[in-house]
């Protein structure tokens, strides 16, 4: 372990924390443009978070400690996840402590805590949201793991930096297994980040919401942390996708500060394009009924398994 490694690790986490709300703002802007609306400023998520931090927290009378600790646990797991995903550098000492499977575990930890917190107050919407979140999660989580397994089999390692280094040095052709995995991963990311077609981040319509139903009871600093953590989650998923399927421009080796400096604009560029793509998908698709979600996620799961089979049997 080297000091430069720790430094680049910290730099990456700081970058994730800083850029995550910006990505959210960019996507919202693109969505507004695509649907012919006047766009909100790109910095709106920052202002929301700061505003929420200044407010007094209101907590329901019968809230227990689970309710109050959950936002911190969610934020903590997402920050740890941001440290593992190679977004600008692959020299990440912390990534040795948690590989791709542990990354999925961290996401699951955040999900379970927020679902428990949603059930804590005992309101109708809270438990409804918790149930739906776990319902989406039970299909999305295996699909995500299968995607990661496919790339792990290609690179013979479950360590994310090694995976990224292997993928970045492969010949630049379209591999069928990676194509299947890429489609599956996109579908999973939509579901996991509460985007259309599974959930709608902009709605508070009772019958359709999932994520918003879970966090209805939160206010002030707790809500700010949840919003920030959600943005961070989206950022993490985007970075996983970019690192697996467009692994170019990420700095390799330790202490190569020029490469890291070049990796940052590359990342921002890729995120800008990715944000447009996400906004486009969201604009052209409609939200599914909750009971169509298993079909959507089941498709993702099957595609991911197919990717693994293709890789295993054909080596492609």
């Amino acid at each position: 372990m080297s000091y430069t490694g720790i430094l680049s690790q910290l730099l990456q986490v700081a970058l994730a924390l800083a850029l995550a709300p910006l990505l959210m703002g960019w996507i919202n802007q693109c969505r507004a443009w695509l649907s012919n609306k006047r766009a909100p400023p790109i910095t709106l998520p920052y202002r929301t978070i700061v505003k929420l931090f200044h407010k007094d927290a209101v907590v329901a009378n019968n809230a227990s400690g689970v309710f109050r600790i959950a936002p911190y646990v969610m934020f903590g797991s997402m920050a740890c996840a941001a440290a593992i995903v190679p977004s600008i550098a692959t020299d990440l000492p912390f990534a040795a402590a948690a590989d791709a499977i542990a990354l999925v575990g961290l996401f699951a930890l955040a999900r379970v805590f927020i679902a428990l917190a949603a059930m804590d107050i005992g309101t109708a919407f809270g438990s409804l949201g918790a149930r739906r979140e776990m319902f989406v999660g039970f299909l999305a989580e295996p699909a995500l793991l299968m995607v990661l397994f496919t790339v792990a089999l290609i690179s013979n390692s479950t360590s994310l930096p090694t995976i990224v280094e292997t993928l970045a040095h492969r010949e630049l052709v379209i591999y069928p297994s990676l194509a299947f995995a890429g489609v599956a991963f996109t579908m999973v990311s939509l579901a996991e980040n509460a985007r259309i077609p599974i959930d709608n981040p902009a709605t508070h319509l009772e019958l359709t919401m999932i994520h918003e139903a879970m966090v209805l009871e939160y206010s002030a600093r707790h809500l700010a942390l949840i919003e920030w953590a959600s943005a961070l989650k989206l950022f993490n998923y985007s970075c996983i996708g970019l690192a697996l399927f467009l692994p170019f421009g990420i700095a390799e080796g330790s202490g190569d500060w020029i490469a890291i400096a070049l990796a940052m604009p590359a990342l921002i560029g890729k995120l800008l394009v990715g944000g447009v793509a996400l906004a486009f998908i969201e604009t052209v698709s409609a939200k599914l009924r909750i009971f169509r979600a298993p079909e959507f996620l089941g498709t993702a799961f099957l595609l991911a398994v197919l990717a693994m089979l293709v890789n295993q049997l054909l080596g492609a």
Partner: protein
Amino acid sequence: MNAAAFSTLDATLLVVLAWMIIGSIGIALPRRLTLIAHVLFPASAAVSAMLVVIGAMALLGSPHTAVLPLGLPSLPFHVRLDPLAAFFLVVLGAASAGISLFSAGYFRSSEGTPPGLVCLQYHVFLAAMAFVLVADDAYAFMVAWETMALASFFLVTTDHRHPEIRRAGFLYLLIAHVGAIAILLCFGVLQDPGGDYTFANMRAVHRDGAWPSIAFFLALVGFGAKAGVVPLHVWLPEAHPAAPSPVSALMSGVMLKTAIYGLLRVTFDLLHTQVWWWGAIALAVGLVTALYGVIFATVQTDMKRLLAYSSIENIGIIVTGIGLAILFNTYGKELLAAVALTAVLYHTINHALFKSLLFLATGSVLHSTRERSLGKLGGLIHRMPWVAWLALIGTLASAGLPPLNGFVSEWLLLQAFLFTPSLPQSFINMLVPLAAAALVLAAALAGYVMVKFFGIIFLGQPRENTLAYAHDAGRFERVALCVLAVACVLLGVLPVQVIGLLDRVNQALVGSTVGGHGGSWVLLAPIAPDRASYSPLIVLVVIVAVVLLTIQVVHRYYHGRLRRGAPWDCGFPLQTPRMQDTAEGFGQPIRQVFEIFFRIERHLPSPFDNAPRYTVRVEDRWWYLLYAPVATAVDFLARLIGLIQQGRIAVYLLYSFATLIALLYLVR
């Protein structure tokens, strides 16, 4: 071996003896509740703790054997303590230490059976389990195995005044004996031609042809019946809710594991050879069991039934790991076999601890509220904070979340799956990704089950008014739950040290070890550090540090002001506890997606009903596919035999006379 020295085997036998003595004191003074609760059960817990130490020492030492002057005159009991047995002794000791301590505060005099008798049955059960593990011939093994089954049967029917509890006990006894017959036949196949039933001779005998496969199948059926492998699982969800909670914990946490021990003993030790498709079959059976168990767990409305189905799931995961280990072993991949086997053993001890913790927590809830149905609980975290927070640790461990122990074993098993492509069989290479997919599906559903379990019991608003009088667990119970929770955390964050011990078993069974491949004391790297590594301690420290740092920063730079108010809930004015999700409601999406697995009888009210009623019954299809036809056939045969029973003495005399004539003719 130095005969004069006091070996770990002697110490183990002393533990068995100590348990028998404690049980005997209990039966001698059957109504002295204070003595039994506050002296005997804590003493038994201390004995269990000693067993952990003895087991760990035996794990590091060399195998010991002895012949006991017990049993039939020409058939003395052989005993042997090797690393495999020692590991399961550690499991037994660790789980029973917590459970006995909990029992000290749990058993009351009002439960049908007098406390002294319960004390005897409980300790005979413990002693029999320990003896199963050290038995070194088929005779001693079967005697201990049957003692274990009988003792647990009486414990299940502790509260025998209820007919459904007697029914559950009978079902358990029936399936236990179907399994015991299969095990007996398995030993019959394995015996050496001279009729010698010691395990040492079984190891030496080399059978050819189909015999090893027949023995494997008999072992899979026999031990599978005890472990709860589908389709022999039906007794678990009946017997666990019927039994008192410490007994459920002991059965689910430890007794199921003795079946895993038996399966490992036969397949990896007694049989000299293995065939690859045994592994494929164990893999398939394990996956079906895991998925079946977890899907049924999601729709349960009784908290102990939910945990029983969750145990079926975990047994499925363990059997899957055994299948994978057999596969690797037959292809000569000892290192991968060792990884799979480590996952099996690790999951065995993990499940023993977190499932005991959860069953004991349900025991506290049951005592405090007299309610087992999830639909009538809720909000207990306020009334029972100790039980709730400790149960949360068990819940997270059971859901397989990092950095707790459930995740470590799942991680190891997934690693074993990921390194499969090196196998020479293309059929297996295709099967394995599908198996891995099924396994992660089961693991993800386990998260759903656990959120349901914890959320409905401990969170939300109390669904009944009586819950306002619930009280927290007593002193003994709290300490017991703490012990188990701490064990879960330690197993979660110190995998390298645990695997250092497990490697002795790996070395003995598959001849390879997992440790020593480039990891460090804090970094687990089963194959090589650049292929896969995991360090739960660092993950835990980092998460806790980030959480604390965030709390500090938020409070320092902003403020920590907090106000309590009524829940918002989108501004709806009326919010009653009835508006929360029920247990049925929480499981409903899964019920709908996996409808094909269930046999559902549902009655929906029409919109014009004045007194609308909604009922739903979710049943196991296996009852109707497998058990009902068998029961009908047995019934039919019994009625045929009934035809010759006329109830008149003259007819019976005629039968005897005819038999006598026939025999005289035949023998002459």
